[in-house]
């Protein structure tokens, strides 16, 4: 019933979502921390740019990314200079696109968590002889855990469901850049509704469970720490 192409689409999708989530967490935590703390004017500009993927049609984003990553685009040329070839229609290109597309889902919950804890716990930690890194690891991160968890799940789930950007910059190369959402689209185009059902229902149930888990965990954490 489920073809080997579907299996590889599933693999590509999970790999893409996982890679994107890891990259966005690593980059998003410092960025969110900075956004929550700074009084710099540049912050408003940056917040607006980060929020853009929420409102733009993915095709717009995809279009500009295609131009940037293609052999004539600045990023594409840079990558060709390094000997990696053009980034368009590659998995790396997909990861770059996904990171930009899912950025607000990673940054906003963490920024809110960092902002909500206020200065007081960190000041208290400083008076207890904890240095900056120590404070970050033992106070900031644990207090922001619910926000970081939300960011992780939302980023992962959102990348799973990506379609427009992938279509524009990834093409549809089975085993390399074909992801689930596009595989579903192909099945529907070919009137293979049964296959489309399996993949769609799978994605639906999985996303639902993921969100349910997150909200449940968030609820339990709030019970412990009001």
């Amino acid at each position, binding site marked *: 019933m489920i073809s080997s192409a579907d299996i590889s689409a599933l693999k590509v999708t999970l790999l893409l979502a996982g890679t994107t989530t890891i990259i966005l967490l690593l980059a998003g935590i410092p960025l969110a921390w900075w956004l929550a703390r700074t009084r710099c004017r540049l912050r408003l500009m940056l917040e607006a740019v980060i929020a853009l993927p929420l409102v733009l049609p993915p095709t717009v984003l995809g279009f500009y990314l295609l131009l940037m990553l293609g052999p004539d685009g600045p990023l594409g040329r840079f990558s060709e200079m390094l000997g990696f070839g053009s980034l368009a229609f590659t998995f790396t290109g997909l990861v770059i696109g996904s990171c930009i597309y899912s950025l607000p889902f990673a940054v906003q919950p963490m920024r809110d968590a960092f902002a909500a804890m206020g200065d*007081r*716990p960190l*000041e*208290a*930690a*400083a*008076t*207890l*002889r*904890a*240095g900056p890194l*120590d*404070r970050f690891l*033992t*106070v900031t991160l*644990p*207090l922001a*855990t619910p926000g970081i968890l939300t960011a992780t799940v939302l980023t992962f789930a959102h990348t799973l469901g990506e379609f427009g950007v992938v279509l524009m910059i990834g093409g549809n190369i089975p085993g390399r850049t074909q992801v689930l959402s596009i595989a579903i689209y192909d099945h529907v185009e070919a009137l293979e509704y049964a296959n489309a059902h399996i993949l769609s229902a799978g994605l639906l149930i999985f996303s639902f469970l993921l969100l349910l888990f997150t909200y449940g965990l968030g609820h339990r954490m709030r019970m*412990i*720490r*009001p």
Partner: protein
Amino acid sequence: MIESTFTLQRSDFRLEVDEAFPGRGVTALFGPSGCGKTTWLRVIAGLERIRDAVIRFDGNSWQDGRTFLPVHRRPIGYVFQDAALFPHMNVEAYLRYGWRRNGRRDDGIPWEEVIGLLELEPLLHRRPASLSGGEAQRVAIGRALLSAPRLLLMDEPLSALDAAARKHILSLLERLKCELSIPVIYVSHSRDEVARLTDHLVLMGRGHVRASGPLAELWTRLDIAAEHGGAASSVVEARVAGHDEAWNLTLLDFPGGRFMVAREALPTGADVRLRIMARDVSITLERQTGTSILNIFPATVTGLAPTGPAQMLVRLDVGGVPLLSGVTRRSAHALGLKPGRKVHAQVKAVALL
């Protein structure tokens, strides 16, 4: 010695400070809210960074020119107005947080002593969210002590508590003061707390220091005491000289003589602090006989100030100790009270703090 010199300008508020406190005992920064006392404390701690401030502790520069010792390198303990506990740690983990990082565990106060003094044992496994205000503040004081501070900074630690918790913690603070030798800077706007705990008083107006000096001296300065109106009082340090077993009295010696008060369970030799309301002190020209009042001392008038249309405050010197008396203008006139006049002070009531 704790020295602070700085000027802070923030929109329409200006705080100007150039003061040195003694490096022992309790120093109170006392003044109305908004006068800048918390900001001052934060500057000393390094939580507030002001340009061109100079902060020195026992000869070490904490801030001076380009030197700025970050908060976590200053040997301070800080108690915030709210307890500022970490919601993700239980009480024991929280107390150990500062304990593990204090770096000089051996000469700090032993763990058991802090736990005992502040009665923290039953709280160790509780979560911060389940603590009452008073319990949380006890934990906050404990964690500050366990970080082995050489200077303890307290920012209105009792102001967020209800009356019962306040009373309890105030008595714990008095015990701490007796048993530990860490200098304390205590921010407060409560006369009671200051009268009970403080040795050195820094009286603040909006953005500046109005006066500073030993508590007993400053507390009875006429211009300052007159603002307290009917609540004007004197603070007298005394020592338990013994007990009168026959009449169940406790004898308290101070430089001006001996107080007799209803018996208190205090060991001979203990230091006590007495608070005497001005309205409980009356003045006679000759030593009264045939009176029920036990505590009568020869005194010299050192100053007078009006406190109302009919009232006056008289400052007396009793063997070098300042004592305030509230009398009517009429009596002051009738007795011919003026500086230098020899009188007798009759003390009707004494409160042990």
